[in-house]
């Protein structure tokens, strides 16, 4: 049996998934930043 990772993913699968994870996470942070800008514009909390 070849060297298997703890998760069972191969290096290539892990790298491929991580690329999508980074993209989705970047979009999430972008949306959250936008939402915070709207809140700051509407009602600054500091």
């Amino acid at each position, binding site marked *: 049996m070849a060297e298997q*990772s*703890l*998760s*069972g*993913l191969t*290096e290539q*699968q*892990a*790298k491929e*998934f*991580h690329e999508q*994870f980074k993209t989705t996470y970047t979009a999430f942070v972008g949306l959250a930043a936008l939402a915070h800008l709207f809140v700051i514009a*509407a*009602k600054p*909390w500091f």
Partner: protein
Amino acid sequence: MSDVKKPSNPEDDWKIWLVVNPATWLMPIFYALLVLAIAVHWVVFSVGLGWH
């Protein structure tokens, strides 16, 4: 244990998926994020900073 090479991030970030299988853990991660977001909104509203 001390001879384990230290990761250098963010280049080695992808290796987390060699330990954590997203087919199993991606949804639990999303639910934890949802719970965190609800908790933060709850606190913000409870300290009176919400729209009401």
